[in-house]
C-alpha cells in the first residue's frame, strides 16, 4: 500500500560523474535491488528481475523510477543557469526513514545545537514567524520569508549574516533550499537533497548544490556540506520511532515547526506513506 505512491516517483541513485564503461553500482531502491551501469550519456538501470527501468541524467545524478506511470521529475530552473557551479556532494547513508531525512532538512531551529557555530549559534536561537503553504497548483510545500542568524552561512561567507531562506518540497523525498548567496545578496544559492529510499528505515542522501561561488575549491565545498550532513546523521539515527509519525498526537510541534507540520499533512493527503508511521504506536 505505502509502495504504490512511492513507486511512481523518480529517485537519484548514482552520481553521473561516477558512470563509465565497466563500472556498475549495485544498490537498493524501495526494497528492490537495482543495478546502475552504462555511461553518463547512456545510463542503464535494471531491477532484480533483469528488467530495464527508465534512467535519465538530471542534476548531476542518475534518476530512475520503479513505477509504470511515473509523475514527471520536478524542475529546478537554476540547473540551467550558465553562471552557476554545480556541486554533487556524494552520498550519505543514514539508518533513518527517508521522510525523517527530508523533514530535518526543512528545519532551521536545530542549527544552533547541531550545526553549532556554522549554521547557527546560541543565543541566536529564535525562529521568527514565516510563511508556509501547500501550493495546490504545483502540488508542492513551500516555506518562505525565513530569516536566521548564521555564523558561517556558506563556504563563501566571511562573516556572520542573517540568512534568508526559502524551502520547497517538490516530491516526498526531495527538498530544495534557496538561501542568501553571501557574495551576491540579490541571488539565491540552491542546495537540494535527493533522498534514495533504500527501505522504509534506511536511506541514502544525495546532496546537490547550484551555487554562485567562483572562488572556493570544489573539494572544500563538498567538505563543508558533508560536515553538515554528518552532524545531521547523529540526530537522524537517534530519533524514535524510526519512521516518521503522521499521527499528530505522537510528536508535539511548536510554531517554528510549521514547515514540518505542513510536510506531514501533505504526505498524509497524498498517501505518500513509504517511511511513515500512519497509526499511533
Amino acid at each position, binding site marked *: 500500500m505505502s509502495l504504490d505512491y512511492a513507486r511512481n516517483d523518480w529517485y537519484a541513485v548514482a552520481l553521473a560523474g561516477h558512470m563509465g564503461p565497466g563500472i556498475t553500482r549495485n544498490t537498493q531502491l524501495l526494497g528492490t535491488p537495482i543495478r546502475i551501469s552504462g555511461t553518463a550519456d547512456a545510463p542503464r538501470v535494471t531491477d532484480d528481475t533483469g528488467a530495464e527501468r527508465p534512467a535519465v541524467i538530471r542534476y548531476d545524478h542518475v534518476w530512475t523510477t520503479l513505477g509504470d506511470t511515473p509523475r514527471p521529475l520536478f524542475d529546478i530552473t537554476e540547473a540551467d543557469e550558465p553562471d552557476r557551479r554545480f556541486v554533487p556532494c556524494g552520498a550519505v547513508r543514514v539508518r533513518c526513514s527517508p521522510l525523517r531525512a527530508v523533514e530535518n532538512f526543512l528545519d532551521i*531551529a536545530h542549527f*544552533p*545545537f547541531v550545526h553549532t557555530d556554522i549554521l547557527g549559534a546560541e543565543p541566536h536561537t529564535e525562529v521568527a514567524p514565516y510563511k508556509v503553504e501547500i501550493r495546490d497548483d504545483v502540488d508542492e510545500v513551500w516555506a518562505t520569508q525565513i530569516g536566521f542568524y548564521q555564523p558561517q552561512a556558506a563556504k563563501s561567507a566571511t562573516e556572520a549574516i542573517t540568512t534568508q531562506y526559502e524551502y520547497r518540497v517538490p516530491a516526498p523525498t526531495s527538498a530544495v533550499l534557496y538561501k542568501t548567496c553571501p557574495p551576491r545578496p540579490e541571488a539565491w544559492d540552491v542546495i537540494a537533497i535527493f533522498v534514495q529510499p533504500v527501505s522504509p528505515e534506511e536511506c541514502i542522501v544525495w546532496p546537490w548544490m547550484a551555487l554562485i561561488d567562483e572562488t572556493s575549491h570544489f573539494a572544500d565545498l563538498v567538505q563543508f556540506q558533508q560536515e553538515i550532513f554528518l552532524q545531521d546523521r547523529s540526530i537522524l539515527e*537517534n530519533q*524514535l*520511532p524510526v519512521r516518521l509519525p503522521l499521527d499528530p498526537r505522537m*510528536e508535539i510541534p*511548536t*510554531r517554528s515547526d510549521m514547515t514540518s507540520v505542513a510536510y506531514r499533512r501533505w504526505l498524509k493527503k497524498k498517501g505518500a506513506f513509504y517511511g511513515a508511521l500512519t497509526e499511533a504506536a
Partner: protein
Amino acid sequence: MTSYPVGLTRDLAENRVMRAQAGGVDMVVWRNSKGALAAWNNRCPHRGMRLSHGFVRGDRLACLYHGWHYGQNGQCAYVPAHPELDPPASIKTQTYAVSEVAGVIWVAPTDAQEAIETPAIAAGLEPLRSITASASEAAITTASLQTAFSGSDLPQAGANGLLHLGERQIALICNQIDATSTQVHVLIDASAALSDRRAVSRWCDALRRAAETMTEESA
C-alpha cells in the same frame, strides 16, 4: 514494580546524562547539580530524539536536537526557538521511578510517584565495578560458580545473594538487557583491601569470558 539496576551511583556525576535499559524500556537517567536523579523515557516529546544525547544546563536536561529544556519533573520549561513562549503543560516527558540503594541506581518503568522496590542487599557492601557481558543473566549466575578465584577455589554461594570468593564477599547485581546482553554490577565488602579488589576485578573479567563462552556454545 520490578526495578532494574542500571548503573553505579559514582558513575553518574552531577550534571551528567546516561542511557539505561530497563525491562525493554529505553530510558535516559540524569543528575542535576544538586545531586537529584531523574529517569525518563528516552525520547523528546517534540521530535522523538533520544534525550540521552542531551546535556544538562541550569538543572534541566536539554535535548541535543533543538535544545528544549525539561525540568526535574519532566515538564518542558524552555523552547529556544521561542524564548518568550511559556511551554504548554502537554509538553512533558514520560517520567519513571528511580532510586539509589547500595551505591546502585535502580529504575522501574512505572510512574515516577510510585514506590520502587529493590531486592534486599546484604549490609556492608559497596560497588566495585560494572561489566557488560554478551551473555544472559542465567549464564552469568552459572559461570560465577564455575570460575575459580585467584586460580584456586571455586566461589561459594552464601545467604542473601552473597558469593564468597575466598575471604571476600561479593554480590552480583544483574540487569539483563536482551537475550544475550547483561549488565553486572559487582559489589564487594567494604573492608576489602586494594589488592583484594584487584583480584576480584580480574575474576570479573574471567567470569565474563566464561559466561560469554557458555552463551556462544549454547547458541
